[in-house]
């Protein structure tokens, strides 16, 4: 009897097979269709952007963890995911170094400075994207058309520019497939939805946030839209709503963990997105909306604590 070899762990002795690492890689897997679509539409430049961002993110994570004398855990996939999202948030026409700078900022300042995995309060890739937009406004809006890479504007920018002219607006079908200008990973709603459905099916993400986010955007855009151009569908398919609602707003770390909180959070994201898109200074508001809701997330969570079981007037 090899008695001393028994492992005594505190209960439960059964644990679900899901691990942090598996979650990260499942999300990465779910992003592959959209990433592939970006390479199809924007060519080798897209691939380079994504690769550079990922490598920079992982390298930064390694260096910072080494400097802080922490355990190196670059294999948990979280840095790869941040890098991937960073790359997919860049316009194809941006200079190649910009993704590297963004990834370094995302990992070093937004994530590791706050203690690393699980301890940041803002989504690193999004914060870095907003920072890049503030730092290099012209480079970060250098959109190009798919395939032939001619400078263009995003559908949202066209719609915002003034009286909507049906001739210049892309077809909804093109927007669904992804055949429009925009950030690398955001154009193909189809590819993103495939990833999103996979994640919801795998129970990696909670349907509440994407549903309430997209629902709010759809409803508000339908109400405030003009003549079917700024329609609900247009705003669902245009810009980064799909990418944001499925992959960024659902970031566990920076969203509330309560069910009610997630509804509020998603609705808030949708509200601010539409606020910025319709009346704000930028054509696109998804990143800012999510970042602003990241800031609100701790408060939302604190005001939506679940009611404990048996919280009723005490008998006797």
């Amino acid at each position, binding site marked *: 009897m090899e008695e001393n070899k028994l492992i005594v762990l505190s209960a439960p002795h059964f644990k679900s097979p899901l691990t942090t690492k598996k979650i990260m890689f499942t999300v990465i897997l779910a992003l592959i269709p959209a990433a592939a679509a970006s390479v199809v539409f924007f060519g080798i430049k897209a691939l380079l952007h994504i690769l550079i961002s990922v490598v920079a993110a992982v390298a930064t994570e390694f260096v910072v963890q080494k400097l802080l004398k922490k355990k190196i855990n670059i294999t948990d996939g979280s840095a790869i995911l941040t890098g991937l999202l960073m790359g997919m948030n860049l316009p194809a026409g941006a*200079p190649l170094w910009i993704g590297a700078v963004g990834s370094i900022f995302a990992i070093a*300042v937004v994530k590791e*400075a706050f203690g690393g995995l699980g301890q940041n309060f803002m989504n690193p890739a999004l914060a870095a994207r907003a*920072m890049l937009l*503030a*730092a*290099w*406004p012209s*480079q970060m809006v250098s959109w190009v058309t798919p395939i032939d890479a001619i400078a263009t504007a995003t559908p949202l920018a066209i719609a915002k520019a003034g009286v909507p002219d049906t001739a210049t607006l892309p077809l909804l079908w093109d927007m669904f497939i992804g055949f429009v200008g925009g950030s690398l990973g955001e154009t193909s709603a189809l590819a993103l939805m495939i990833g999103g459905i996979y994640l919801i099916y795998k129970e990696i993400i909670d349907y509440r946030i994407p549903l309430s986010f997209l629902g709010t955007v759809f409803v508000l855009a339908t109400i405030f839209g003009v003549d079917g151009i700024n329609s609900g569908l247009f705003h669902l398919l245009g810009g980064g709503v799909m990418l944001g609602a499925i992959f960024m707003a659902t970031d566990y770390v920076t969203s509330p963990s309560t069910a009610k909180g997630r509804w509020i959070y998603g609705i808030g994201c949708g509200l601010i997105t539409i606020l910025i898109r319709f009346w704000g200074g930028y054509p696109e508001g998804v990143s800012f909306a999510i970042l602003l809701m990241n800031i609100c997330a701790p408060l939302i969570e604190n005001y939506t604590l679940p009611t404990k079981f048996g919280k009723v007037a005490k008998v006797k």
Partner: protein
Amino acid sequence: MKNKYLKTLTDGVVTENPLFRLVLGTCPALAVSSAVANGFWMGLMVIFVLTFSNMLISALRNFIPDKIRIPCYIVIIATFVTIVDLLMAAYMHEMHKTLGIFIPLIVVNCIILARAESFASKNSILHSAVDGIGMGLGFMAALMIVATFREVLGNGTFFNIRVLPAGFPVAKVMVEAPGAFITLGLVLGLINLITARSKTA
């Protein structure tokens, strides 16, 4: 004797640097550190106000009733601030416009009131003057350090002289609000790190 003054001076600049060690006067530090020149002039004004208010408060320290000392200090400080405000408006009009509201706001810069309360009201005129100069210099140095990062990276210049090549993609955000907060935060962290290292070494 001499040592005492020297110590007060170095205290102000290094060991008790108002911005880096005591984290006082953060509003102007964030607002005017977008360019080294702004930092320099703001620092100069703070040195002026701090030194003179310290001296006057020290001179009057035995006459000001304890109960109303804070309003008295504020009036004294506000007077000197008004003097620099008018001087700047007259001779440095551009800079006066750039620094704008932050000149009258020197009144509520916590450094000045803090030194009045904790130093000038207890020490001799000369000593208080040295303290004012030291603290002011420390503040000025801190502003200029932060401003160096921000101006070089955000505008490609240092003291308005171009140091980065013209085509260099400067990060506009550095001279704006987020850049201010994050740079100051990182510089503070760096200084903490250096201090911790030098203490253990």
